[in-house]
């Protein structure tokens, strides 16, 4: 089902030309510019593949190309991440059953045929951190190439219909979708060389140069060469253990936002949300805006973790927030049909007799994010586990440079925080990298001072406490 009317976004202006794809031989109507899994969801198809060992049905989970829950066979090629691969007219899509081989006549691309792209600075990730880094580096005279594996720039901002906090010069009071448009346009105008649908697969050192190996549109190899690399790869959604947590219809909060706010697809009819942090309660509000019923938000902690004002928005529209509750299990035949929740005691154990059953077709998990630091790990940067930053993160100095000279980090990939601080960290990394490659002058140093002040100011309240403790642990002095 598709959304025709929405209080914030006009989808009729966003949708491309109508095309037809074939799902196991059956024609499905889709729009140019939308990914395969999303188009299938709009057509009511939830099961995308069957797991190799258990044969259990699997559906979408992250919808940003990170979790591999959406792998399908596309035009005979298995293991295609259908959540970020765009539909093409006449495309054949099949459910993948376990591990499937490549077709015998398939010829994989060769490294020596890779397209070569050169720039002073290579940026991996086109979200708020990567784009800001690109803007700042280009402003100070560096040449920049930026890649993102998604089909559009903006990272997770493209699905945020709410207005951001902070100061107005940091886009406070502006909706995330709009911020994405503004900074993507600015990066393009500043001459950042942009590669979409391009996944980085490794970072290597070659003398004084750095190589980022990448795959474009699942088929072409690209070799990016530069003097510095900024890793702004964001984060991925966490999962929690409960019975049937792999049932199609148990979706990460971000996947639901992608469906409804990026592509205008109604995610379901009735939703239970797990987690009352900012992501969970903002998702509840966005679902109501899309005309979807939210039966409850359950939260294991005794208090709402979100900014209170975001929670108040859904309470006054009648959505219950059940603190000290957890999900026990999902129920249904190859798709979510019910969710069972229960109250928990001081030892986090479900209290017998408190079970509640909700008839829902979607269970949204908003149980936190973890940094995407795999490329930094692969390149040999020092990694440590920091609870306050929500997982394994890379060590860096106050210019966002990691323990590998010339490799910088910014945004959620350096610790889970806000888009506002991701943009500020991006600015820092962009300026520092422009200095590192010898393009920026002393003005960049003054600008970095101002950015650092802005970051400190943003983190100075009670919500910044945790992050500051985490930053203290990773910071190289």
């Amino acid at each position: 089902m598709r959304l025709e009317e929405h209080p914030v976004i006009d989808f009729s202006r966003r949708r491309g030309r109508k095309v037809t794809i074939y799902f196991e031989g059956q024609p499905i109507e889709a729009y140019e510019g939308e990914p395969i899994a999303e188009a299938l969801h709009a057509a009511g198809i939830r099961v995308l593949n069957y797991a190799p060992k258990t044969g259990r049905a699997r559906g979408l989970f992250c919808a940003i190309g990170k979790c591999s829950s959406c792998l399908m066979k596309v035009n005979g090629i298995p293991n295609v991440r259908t959540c970020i691969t765009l539909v093409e007219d006449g495309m054949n899509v099949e459910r993948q059953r376990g591990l499937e081989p490549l077709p015998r006549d398939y010829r994989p691309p060769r490294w020596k045929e890779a397209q070569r792209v050169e720039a002073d600075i290579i940026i991996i990730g086109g979200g708020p951190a990567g784009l800001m880094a690109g803007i700042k580096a280009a402003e100070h005279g560096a040449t920049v190439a930026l890649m993102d594996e998604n089909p559009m720039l903006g990272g997770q901002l493209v699905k945020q219909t709410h207005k951001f906090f902070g100061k107005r010069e940091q886009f406070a009071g502006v909706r995330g979708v709009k911020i994405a448009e503004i900074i993507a346009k600015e990066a393009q105008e500043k001459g950042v060389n942009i590669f979409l649908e391009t996944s980085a697969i490794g970072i290597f050192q070659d003398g004084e140069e750095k190589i980022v190996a990448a795959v474009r549109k699942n088929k072409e190899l690209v070799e990016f060469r530069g003097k510095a690399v900024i890793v702004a790869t964001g984060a991925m959604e966490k999962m929690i253990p409960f019975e049937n947590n792999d049932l199609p219809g148990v979706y990460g909060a971000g996947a639901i936002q992608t469906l409804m706010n990026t592509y205008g697809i109604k995610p379901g009819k009735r939703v239970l949300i797990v987690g009352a942090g900012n992501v969970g309660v903002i998702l509840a509000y966005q679902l109501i805006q899309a005309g979807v019923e939210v039966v409850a938000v359950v939260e294991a902690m005794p208090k709402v973790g979100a900014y209170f004002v975001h929670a108040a928005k859904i309470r006054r529209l009648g959505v219950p927030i059940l603190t000290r509750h957890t999900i026990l299990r999902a129920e249904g035949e190859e798709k979510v049909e019910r969710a069972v929740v229960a109250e928990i005691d001081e030892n986090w154990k479900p209290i017998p007799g408190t079970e509640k059953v909700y008839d829902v077709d979607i269970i949204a998990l908003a149980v936190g994010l973890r940094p995407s630091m795999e490329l930094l790990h692969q390149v040999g940067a020092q990694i440590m586990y920091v609870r306050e930053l929500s997982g394994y993160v890379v060590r860096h100095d106050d210019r966002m440079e990691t323990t590998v000279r010339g490799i910088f980090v910014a945004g959620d990939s350096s610790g889970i925080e806000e888009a506002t601080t991701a943009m500020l960290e991006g600015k820092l990394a962009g300026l520092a990298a422009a200095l590192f490659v010898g393009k920026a002058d002393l003005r960049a140093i003054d600008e970095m001072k101002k950015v650092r002040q802005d970051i400190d100011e943003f983190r100075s309240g009670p919500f910044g406490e945790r992050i500051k403790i985490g930053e203290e642990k990773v910071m190289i002095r």
Partner: protein
Amino acid sequence: MSDEYLSRGYLTTEELKEIVEIPSEERLKKKPVAVPECPQEIPCTPCAEICPVGAISMPTPNDRPIVDYEKCIGCSLCVQICPGLAFFMIHYRGEVARITMPHELLPIPKRGDEVVLLNRRGEEVGVGKVVLVIPKEKSVGDTPVVTVEVPLNLAWEVRAIRVKEAGE
């Protein structure tokens, strides 16, 4: 004050009165006045930045907004821009009160429509009449703002509306 409200997700009117000084009855009768329901210290400043008369004080971005009700001119810009949709305007007019609030849901009601009134828990507490609508195109914060006339005793209860369905 206790943070009991965080286990529920809403403030009671009594809790609200503990965190912000409520405007005097005299001031409430004079013209609309902005009241923030923003109890936490969060890094957010658009209200203070947009206020045309400097009525909102916020020494650092993480401070809570405090409105000088004598300075406030009731222009609703803070209601329009607040990212947390936490600003409301109240105006006592004899037997009724007018409440100005953000409304980011479809359908957007029209002037003169009768709407269902919701309190901070989302419970229906009565019906009111829409007297003014600022559509999102005219709102500085891209958020439609609706002014609803409600019985005076609901002035501190009603914080959202539900537009009636056809035939309701």
